[in-house]
């Protein structure tokens, strides 16, 4: 209908504007740890003196990473959703361009926001093949940890934490604000050992649907995150 050249011309203009608008880049990494050393799936970790545990599966969503300065939002992530999967690597990197690099706080959601949850099936890191969408009830699992320990009085001594739920009163979405010193490269440590120091596997080892326990566990998970510049 219209000559192809016209499109290329507009595309060219758009791209040009894009380049002019380029700002400072900040790299953010999520580092999965177990007692300050990089987490390894399948490795046996000592716990509470005589016992041990193994983690076989660890995946969680981080979404809506935003940058603040003096309480005002000054930047926002382009990629809205991140799926952090211990199977791939214990280190997950992503980077952003922030207009005014002098931010003092990073805010993000552990899990997915309610709007995304309500939208249901989507693609990319939200595709159901990631095994992060519940099969028998609504919504995505925000945080999933599976493994085993003799402390669990369950079949094959398994523990399974499928932490999700976005409808009150069992909303497990945690929004975290971490104060930081603006820098080109920041690392957010996620030390899983602290989780098992708080949640006693002999008492709580199976959380599979939105309920009181899921909310309690989601609050503990939020305490595992800490930030430092590199």
């Amino acid at each position: 209908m219209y000559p192809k050249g016209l499109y290329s011309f507009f595309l060219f203009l758009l791209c040009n504007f894009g380049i002019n608008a380029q700002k400072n880049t900040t790299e953010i990494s999520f580092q999965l740890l177990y007692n300050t050393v990089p987490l390894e799936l399948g490795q046996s970790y000592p716990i509470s003196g005589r016992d041990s545990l193994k983690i076989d599966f660890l995946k969680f969503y981080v979404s809506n990473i935003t940058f603040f300065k003096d309480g005002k939002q000054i930047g926002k992530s382009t990629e809205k959703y991140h799926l952090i999967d211990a199977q791939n690597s214990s280190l997950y990197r992503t980077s952003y361009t922030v207009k005014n690099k002098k931010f003092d706080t990073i805010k993000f959601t552990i899990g997915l926001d309610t709007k995304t949850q309500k939208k249901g099936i989507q693609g990319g890191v939200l595709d159901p093949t990631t095994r992060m969408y519940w099969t028998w009830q609504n919504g995505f699992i925000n945080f999933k940890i599976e493994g085993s320990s003799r402390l669990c009085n369950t079949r094959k001594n398994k523990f399974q934490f499928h932490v999700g739920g976005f409808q009150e009163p069992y909303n497990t979405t945690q929004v975290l604000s971490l104060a930081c010193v603006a820098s080109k490269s920041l690392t957010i440590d996620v030390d899983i050992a602290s989780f098992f120091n708080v949640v006693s596997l002999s008492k709580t080892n199976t959380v599979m649907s939105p309920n009181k326990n899921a909310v309690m566990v989601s609050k503990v998970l939020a305490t595992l995150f800490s930030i430092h510049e590199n």
Partner: protein
Amino acid sequence: MKIKRIIIGAFIVLTATYCGVKKNVLDSPEYFPVPHYNIDNNPISKAKTTLGNNLFYDPLLSANNSISCASCHSPHAAFAHTDHDLSHGIHDSIGTRNAPPLFNLAWQEHFMWDGAIDNLDAQALAPISHATEMGSSINEIVGKLKNHPKYPGLFNDIYKDSLITGERILKVLAQFQVSLISNNSKYDQIQRGTATFTQQEISGYNIFTSNCASCHAEPLFSSYGFANNGLAIDSTLKDIGRQKITKNPMDSMLFKIPSLRNLAYTFPYMHDGRFNTLREVLKHYTQGVQKSPSLHTALKNGITLTKKEQTDLITFLGTLNDRLFISSKKHQINRDFFIKNEGE
């Protein structure tokens, strides 16, 4: 800045003109309400409906290639599981609930008898993954479809690349199911002015509006909300319904209100298929309603109906059977697709 905005605007306008403005609506009569299903997230196309149809009838979706969606949702039963109180799945295991019919799904906000699922696209994950239904997983199905002689081509026709993802499989399945619209019963013909009720049907219609319509609302014959209609809890299944999801005691024994369309094809009735005939259903409403705190107010004072009134009501319910819907070729299995497969 201003120039940038104008250019972007021009770009959008040109693109829109180029693509042509697409009509993206469900083919439903004007006396139906606005559908709940968000078609913008899954634009309608004939190719998608056809592919969804093939998947719906394909036993490849189960672990040992023995069970398809249609095994429990048969077109001749308005996509319910006729003659089975509880549905059978893989390895002949028996489920805990009666398979509901599938039609007018685009107007439903909640799925399953207890509304465990709010999203039609996501619903299929439940039977696919359930150990006693199809016993598979969406990942396994992605693998099988990728290696199939025909499916990658069909995905390519729709998405212009042959990538097969969980999202695409589910949306294509949902699109076929959304296309299952029942709107050709005698009641519908009367709405369009091409048929009229008999005297007995009018009498039945009046009994319906004063006793049943508060829950089974026209024109879909369900509000698709939840209610406790006074069924006694089944002591073997101990199914408490909606309370399982909300954990609210006032939701004990609330189940999703089913549509009264196509009842001739969907027996047995209720979430556990406890009644075989409409007579038994009416016996329940007139004599069997169990009082409890969560019983719906519409049933608190009881319903009384004479034998004649019951007959008239059942006659009216007969006008809601949609023979065209259950015999429509476009909803049935596409035999060519499957026959040619076997030859390969």
